[in-house]
């Protein structure tokens, strides 16, 4: 099954994925109108700075077993049997933050949402864009990612592709193919250097 794969080494921190995610989870599904919605749609994935200030996209891993699911008090967190996606039922959620305490990746947030009961604050996390997938679309964050930091593919295919890329980058005679596109490399390098200068 295709899954969103994260390749942090390619992330530039442009946050386009966050915008696309918030829009995909809005009522109107268009950025232009989504910004006027109340409650304001919010992203389910979060781009932060990595250990050297490079970009780092952080989203739910849909772990199995899922610590959040085991810790959920009202039984609001469940796994979609078809896709393995870990989901939150906004009707059952009591906003206790037990899931935030259990999640080793820190991906849960708590806010209102147009699909939740009005004015109710509920736990929010990535839902693999199941709604979009039903319509034959790929997850919004992947669709918008320009650097290949987010891809939608089988996990063994992702692994094979990475192996291929590494092999090619060190093989003589092949057409020169950097492991990470030169532009991406340069920008990440610049961020890292800035960070190191600050640390000195």
């Amino acid at each position, binding site marked *: 099954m295709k899954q969103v794969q994260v390749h942090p080494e390619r992330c530039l921190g442009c946050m386009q994925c966050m915008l696309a995610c918030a829009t995909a989870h809005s009522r109107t599904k268009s950025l232009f109108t989504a910004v006027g919605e109340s409650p304001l749609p919010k992203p389910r994935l*979060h781009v932060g*700075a990595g*250990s050297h200030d490079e970009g*780092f996209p952080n989203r739910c891993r849909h772990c199995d077993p899922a610590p959040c699911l085991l*810790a959920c008090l009202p039984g609001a967190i469940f796994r979609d049997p078809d896709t393995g996606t870990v989901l939150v039922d906004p009707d059952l959620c009591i906003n*206790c*933050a037990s899931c*935030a*305490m259990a999640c*080793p990746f820190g991906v849960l947030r708590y806010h209102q949402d147009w699909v939740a009961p009005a004015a109710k604050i509920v736990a929010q996390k990535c839902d693999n864009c199941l709604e979009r997938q039903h319509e034959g679309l790929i997850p919004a964050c992947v669709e918008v990612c320009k650097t290949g930091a987010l891809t939608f593919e089988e996990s063994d295919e992702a692994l094979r592709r990475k192996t291929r890329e590494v092999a090619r980058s060190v093989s003589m005679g092949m057409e020169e193919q950097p492991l990470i596109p030169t532009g991406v490399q340069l920008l990440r390098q610049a961020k890292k250097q800035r960070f190191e200068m600050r640390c000195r």
Partner: protein
Amino acid sequence: MEYVIIGNGIAGTSAAEAIRRLDRQGAITMIADEDEIPYCRPMISNLLAGDIAAERLAIRPSSFYDDLNIKPVLGRRVQSIDPAAGKVRVGDSDLIVPFDRLLIASGADPRISEVPGSQLPGVFCLRNRSQALDIMAAAEHGRKAVVVGGGLVGLKAAHALQSRGLQVVMLIRSAHPLRLQVDASAGRMILAKLREHGLQVLVEAEVAAFEGSGKVLENIVLADGQKIPADLAVIAKGVAPAAGFAADGPIGLGPGGGIVVNNTLETTVPGIYAAGDVAETMDVARREKRVNAIWPEAVEQGIAAGFNMAGRRVAYRGSLSRNVMRIYGLDIMTAGVVEPPAADDSYEVVAVTDKHRDIYHKLVFRDDRLVGMMLINGIEQGGVLLSLIRREVAIVEKKERLLEPGFQVGKLMPQYFK
């Protein structure tokens, strides 16, 4: 194989489910005091607050016992265990249940008050569903309530009663609430917040008596003679392991009064296991045996006990005290050692405060390991920090970095994920 489980709380329930994943044939008997479908105990405070309906407490379908082919013996208490004969005695009756593997998942009982008048109608504990319903009935006619104790359950009870429109006075022995979870500065922050939300809190207050004329509660009398009028009172002075029936047998109890288990959740008697609020386990942060009476531990211990009982050896890594609470406009998440022993210089504390955002974050390290955290507001990354405590990883970066704004899992060095 005959499995017997004492208690149908989340530890017993999780164990039964784990056993059934490995063993479809063996007979499982669940003996439990509460005649209920497994329900979410922490949510009785949401019930009391009027946030949810009583039906919403159930966390398993009503066909739970049938689905898992469990023989339920409900509304009955286990009186004693005969480990040598492999038998459990139920009530003072004739019902004797034999076992090959026994799980004690009897949870905890609220600590009761010894002062005069604590038996008066109108004086309650908040531990199970029926008590919550009793308090709700009493609150129908009451206007004034007193909560004795400023722990997690005390705060939740006070908040719930306020939501019902009652005027609530909280009496606490220490100088601030959540004494077991937070330090004095956080305690002062929390105290101020409670008062801001209309909760009257009397600190360093000692209850001397519950006073009533005839059959109704009228006043709570303090040691200094002060009288506080009340229509109902909730005593929330913490819990103690419900291990009375094992007290004078060969099953070993620990200093915390819980049933001591090893890393397979087995007690000192082979074939007898314990899990949840009744069990005393190795605390990974404190490195000593401790009862960590919290829901997520009861789940994990129940699952691990169930697997081991059914023959799959799984090692339980030890427990960690942790709590999260969003109440009175505060988000509070704590874990492990929050106040290190002053004389011990292997501990190091790193803290930040942000007055504008009402944030106070504190991390406690022992040598290069994170062993405790206290987050007042801004709790989103608490799970990341907590996983560093639980996995006992050596912290290689500057400790302060873990509290910088913008900290998230991507900031951690890749070696943590090996």
